[in-house]
């Protein structure tokens, strides 16, 4: 999962396998979460979001799970493809207490063909 520090967590998976990327968020009161995908040399791009009144949300090949009890967020990618290789960032936000999202350090996913 993500952590603060100089070494980016890494995950390597075989093409076609499922990937699970984890994130421990910091504020138990955060009520909105987003997963971003950041390809090399590019800005982060929105993948999927979830609000705190949900435990699970599914998109196309991606699922986000939220466990508020342990402040844990995960991103599941089904049938991982080489194009999924990137850094994945989780972000948290608390409505009405600030205007910014807070980001984790990211997890680097490498898909092995």
């Amino acid at each position, binding site marked *: 999962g993500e952590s603060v520090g100089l070494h980016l967590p890494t995950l390597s998976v075989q093409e076609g396998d499922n990937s699970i990327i984890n994130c421990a968020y910091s504020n138990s009161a955060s009520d909105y979460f987003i997963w*971003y995908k950041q390809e090399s040399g590019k800005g982060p791009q*929105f993948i999927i979001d979830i609000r705190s009144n949900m435990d699970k949300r599914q998109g196309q090949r991606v699922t986000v799970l939220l466990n508020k009890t342990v402040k844990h967020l995960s991103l599941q990618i089904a049938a991982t493809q080489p194009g999924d290789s990137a850094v994945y960032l989780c972000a948290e936000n608390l409505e009405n207490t600030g205007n*910014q999202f807070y*980001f984790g*350090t990211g997890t680097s996913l490498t898909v092995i063909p």
Partner: protein
Amino acid sequence: NAGVTQTPKFRILKIGQSMTLQCTQDMNHNYMYWYRQDPGMGLKLIYYSVGAGITDKGEVPNGYNVSRSTTEDFPLRLELAAPSQTSVYFCASRQTTRGLGYTFGSGTRLTVV
């Protein structure tokens, strides 16, 4: 629809020089942000703006200045560049509601030597 446009993409500065990183968005977003991203670290907020004429400091504002004279533009000014400002800088914008989070620019890679 160009989204968020940042210029330049790359820049090398000498210690003590100054420069302005440009950011323009064409989505009529009120909220705009400047982040820096260092290797193995999460995105750190430098400055943000909730509308034209309004700016506020983020987590790491020292050594930077911003202005917001129009909704579209949010330039970041570096005065007296220092090696510690070597980083990748991302501009982002979002709509007033939180849904879908930020739209990011492609980044400016700055090296101070």
